[in-house]
């Protein structure tokens, strides 16, 4: 037995997880910059957060295009005559394009002292929220994939974006007490929300049908367990919550330590949630 076997590969590899990671950071950092027009404590981050947001957007865009097997044909995604409105990828293309254009518009208002930056700040923030939501829908619409095909996915990706972006902003905050306090709150409550969603995902997956049962086994055993449970849940979610609740977590150094763990958790969770549910399908033959 085993003299002739057909094998299958997963559709989406680690590059997509990296894309989700960077696009989430880009969206949240833009929001942080936008907040500076309404909350004084965010004022020091207005330009630095925006520049990093734009850099993350460029990196995410390059990863996305580079991951296509026909990179030049990314132009096809910009052709409205080709658009399939049923595909979340189309909404993603539109949102990324508009987010990029709004970023350029926002850039032109950054140096001004009047309030002309408020409008692009709000528009860009809403588009950034759309980017995080679409990332979740990108996975959620695949009806045969355990873990992916849940209403939690868009919400989880919004929370991951919020936390990863705030974690990067923590490094830009340079110890400003009030700002550190607000970022700590965002990181703490965002990560708590992620923990609750992960618990919910794990329970529903473990109690699901055969595909769910096998996916649960894949994600909580072997190599993927190290990434999902070890780095994603323990190091990247539970440890930062404990750190942020401790007195040390209220200090700038503690906040940065938690931020570092959250970034590790952010990429690990995205990777394992992307790859894990695809693994069982490769055995369907």
């Amino acid at each position, binding site marked *: *037995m*085993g003299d*002739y*076997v*057909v*094998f*299958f*590969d*997963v*559709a*989406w*590899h680690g590059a997509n997880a990296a894309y989700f990671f960077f696009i989430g950071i880009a969206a949240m950092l833009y929001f942080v910059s936008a907040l500076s027009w309404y909350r004084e404590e965010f004022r020091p981050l207005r330009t630095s957060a925006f520049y990093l947001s734009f850099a993350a957007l460029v990196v995410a865009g390059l990863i996305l295009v580079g*991951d*296509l*097997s*026909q990179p030049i*044909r*990314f132009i*096809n*995604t910009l*052709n409205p005559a*080709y*658009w*399939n409105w*049923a*595909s979340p*990828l*189309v909404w993603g*293309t539109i949102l990324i394009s508009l987010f990029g254009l709004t970023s350029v518009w926002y850039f032109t208002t950054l140096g001004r002292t009047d309030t002309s930056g408020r409008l692009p700040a709000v528009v860009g923030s809403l588009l950034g929220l759309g980017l995080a939501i679409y990332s979740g829908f990108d996975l959620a*619409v*695949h*009806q*045969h*994939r355990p873990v992916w095909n849940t209403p939690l996915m868009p919400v989880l990706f919004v929370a991951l974006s919020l936390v990863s972006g705030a974690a990067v902003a923590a490094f830009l905050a340079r110890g400003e007490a009030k700002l550190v306090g607000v970022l700590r709150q965002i990181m703490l409550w965002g990560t708590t929300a992620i923990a609750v969603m992960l618990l919910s995902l794990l329970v529903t997956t473990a109690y699901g*049908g*055969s*595909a769910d049962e*096998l996916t649960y*086994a894949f994600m909580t055993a072997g190599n993927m367990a190290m990434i999902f449970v070890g780095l994603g849940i323990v190091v990247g979610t539970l440890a930062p919550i404990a750190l942020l609740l401790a007195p040390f977590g209220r200090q700038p150094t503690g906040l940065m330590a938690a931020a570092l763990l959250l970034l590790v958790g952010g990429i690990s969770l995205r990777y394992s949630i992307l790859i894990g549910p*695809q693994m*069982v*399908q*490769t*055995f*369907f*033959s």
Partner: protein
Amino acid sequence: MGEELRTSSVETRGMAGRKRYAMVVDTRRCIGCMACQVACKAEFDTPLGVNRTWVPYKVVGTYPNVKKQFLPRLCNHCDDPPCVRACPVEATYKVPEGGFVLMRYERCIGCKACIASCPYNARFMLPAHRTYTNITSVVDKCTFCFHRVTQGLVPSCVQTCIGRSRVFGDINDPTSEVSYLVAKNATQVLRPEQGTKPQVFYIGADRNHTEYGRDLYRRPEVMEEDRKSFDQHFGV
């Protein structure tokens, strides 16, 4: 034949005045000669490592009560195909007349959303270099031999099947052989719970094949070694 329950506008099975091609695979007649796979490879020059159709088998039971169970596989040309929904640029589409799910190679961007959305592993990525054609680095799949069927022929796998395990025809035509077989036999489709309305019907499919991920409960070492080689070759 009664009117089919249609839940989306693209479904054409049971629709009066429309052809809806389907395949019946009688697994009791399949001897595992793989001639269908070879015919398909010859018809389309499908590269090594990927297949438009394939015939997996499982050895079921223990000696002396043992049997090789075959389950010929191909694109199910779903009546409600998730791959068509997933493609951002309509590179994959469903032909209303006949229900073929096809590819526009020149439009495919290679985002692999269709591969991710297919519950049957029926889609694959073509390699970057091919000898006889410049159709490379795009997603490919079984076409139900659209080019042959529109010329009045049957798909090459059906043509070559020596046991007449594979039967092809218009399931909307109540006089066709596929309609007869589906009406007269207990048939199964793969993963019906996904709502894709597959149009490949199996007679006598074994649950060791049809149940999701059943292989994982007993993974022979030799297959694990093969899988590692495959992963290494494709850089997985």
